[in-house]
């Protein structure tokens, strides 16, 4: 009883000092028991059960680390990230496709992403473990399957989300990747050639199935996976 009280005192002292020094009330502390505004409820110290339910698949320590990262990016301290929060990362800002990648985090029409959404997107990049490869097909496909990784890349090309990569969309993405260094004509012919090689049903656009066919030999599992050090 006494111990609990003393401990509570220490925690209260700490959060009061943080609240006094931070500009916004209700600043979330990532450790101990805390309120996760973005995921709509109290997050107990027990491993993030709801993340497990969503089959995100990260280990407990990885989730804690990524939550720490999430809160350090969240400058407004309101439990969600905006596009500006992402653009503040210099190495992402200099990535030619930085804006497209940032866009992948935000669901349709929204401009705030909470921790759950953040983790769902990052879950695509978990390495595929051996024991997962032979899982039965009854459950929903894990987010980091080969097909879902390819779908993530497909969505980077597919600007209007109509499940097809048209010539215009390919041109726009190419323009983002090369900047001003290549002329319109050259870029146009590159786009034409790519579509010609990939297109099988003659609609001058690349569907997801055609996309998968073109990349069937690429080692997607390795190239679209990020390994944790611990």
């Amino acid at each position, binding site marked *: 009883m006494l*111990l609990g009280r*003393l*401990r509570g*005192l*220490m*925690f209260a*002292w*700490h959060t009061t*000092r943080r609240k006094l*020094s*931070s500009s916004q009330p209700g600043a979330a502390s990532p*450790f*101990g028991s805390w309120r996760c505004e973005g995921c709509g409820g109290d997050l107990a*110290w027990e491993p993030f059960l709801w993340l497990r339910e969503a089959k995100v698949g990260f280990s407990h320590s*990885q989730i*804690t680390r*990524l939550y720490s*990262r999430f809160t*350090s*990016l969240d400058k407004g301290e309101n439990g969600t990230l905006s596009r500006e929060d*992402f*653009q503040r*990362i*210099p*190495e*992402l*800002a*200099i*990535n*030619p*496709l*930085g804006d497209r*990648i940032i866009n992948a985090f935000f669901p349709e029409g929204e401009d705030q992403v909470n921790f759950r959404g953040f983790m769902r997107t*990052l879950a695509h*990049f978990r390495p595929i473990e051996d024991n997962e490869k032979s899982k039965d097909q009854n459950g929903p496909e894990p987010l980091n399957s080969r097909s879902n990784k390819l779908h*993530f*890349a497909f969505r*980077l*090309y597919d600007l209007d989300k109509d499940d097809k990569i048209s010539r215009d969309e390919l041109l726009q*993405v190419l323009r983002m*990747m*090369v*900047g001003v*260094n*290549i002329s319109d004509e*050259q870029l146009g012919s*590159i786009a034409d050639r*790519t579509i010609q090689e*990939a297109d099988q049903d003659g609609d001058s656009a690349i569907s997801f199935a055609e*996309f998968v066919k*073109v*990349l069937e030999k*690429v*080692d*997607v599992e390795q*190239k*679209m*996976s*990020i390994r944790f*050090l611990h």
Partner: protein
Amino acid sequence: VVNLLGISITVLFTLLLVFIIVPAIFGVSFGIRKVYMKTLLKIFQWATLRIERGAKEKNHPLYKPYVNGIIAKEPTSLEEEIKEIRRSGSGKALDTPEFELSDIFYFCRKGIETIMDDEVTKRFSAEELESWNLLSRTNYNFQYISLRLTVLWGLGVLIRYCFLLPLRIALAFTGISLLVTGTTVVGYLPNGRCKEFLSKHVHLMCYRICVRALTAIITYHDRENRPRNGGICVANHTSPIDVIILASDGYYAMVGQIHGGLMGVIQRAMVKACPHVWFERSEVRDRHLVAKRLTEHVQDKSKLPILIFPEGTCINNTSVMMFKKGSFEIGATVYPVAIKYDPQFGDAFWNSSKYGMVTYLLRMMTSWAIVCSVWYLPPMTRQPEEDAVQFANRVKSAIARQGGLVDLLWDGGLKREKVKDTFKEEQQKLYSKMIVGN
């Protein structure tokens, strides 16, 4: 009761005078601070062990911060990576430049890697500690603290806030007022050797008192390389305390912008006793004017070495960021100094976007101590074949190597500003070469 209070205050003041101020004036030390530091270390180790035990009992993994990053990053270039992806995809010849749909995997993965863990943004917030130092501000594992530890923490709070804080504030007050009055008085003397001698000792004495006001335990290495007249001293920047630390061991001319308020009073008093280089706010933007004044100062061999922090902003002492080339263009001998703080006893980093100056100083004065090591590196001069930027990078690498810090090319200004578009354009250019060749 009033008598008792009067007596205790007198006793306190005499103790203060004898044990702290008098040694500061003469530059000697009783070694009290070193003993204090050793005792604290033992307590911290014990505290960490208890927390680990607490966590093990509950069968929970403990949160341990990893300073070297949380994900594995390959140090390969854009070209190599994209070639790798293409190689696994098709059997076509790799030498012909062309576009593949799979190229996007490179940018995609690199982007997500930087979202999970990037090299730059983590330098602008305080370093995380591996063991707990009995300050609630650095504790990430509240649940595992036993009764004994909580009591110890409470004791720590009492000592820090009720004993150390008033003591330190009294010392700081003494130090600053002595500095202002001392330099003003010395300023009235006629120019000559007497004035220089007095000025030097007034400065040193006051900085030493300030060092004790922060309970800073500093270890100076290689003091034979200390900066000489006509040189420029450059160091990595972590907090405004760096100035106090360096200036308590050497006599420097400061460079900076004139502020208002208390800082302004101190600056104006200091410049009466010896020629510091203060700029008005409007003059700071004029780079030529700044360079001219610095060059004039440096060429006068009777003037003191200049102290400059080329990073331009406070970095969290885990890395050294880009040095601005201004001070390296002047052509004087550069004396690099590496400062490394031990964050166990109190984190000296000033996160200016989070804390104002007063909050920062309060945090400093309620930490256990400020422990740091200062290395004076051998002087460097610009070689004929290198330009100012290369020289700056060379000095930066030397400082990073000595201090055990990560050497980054990123600009510390990224704390507040957006990154320049030229970096993105470089990436785009590199990639264009891969699709259409030169």
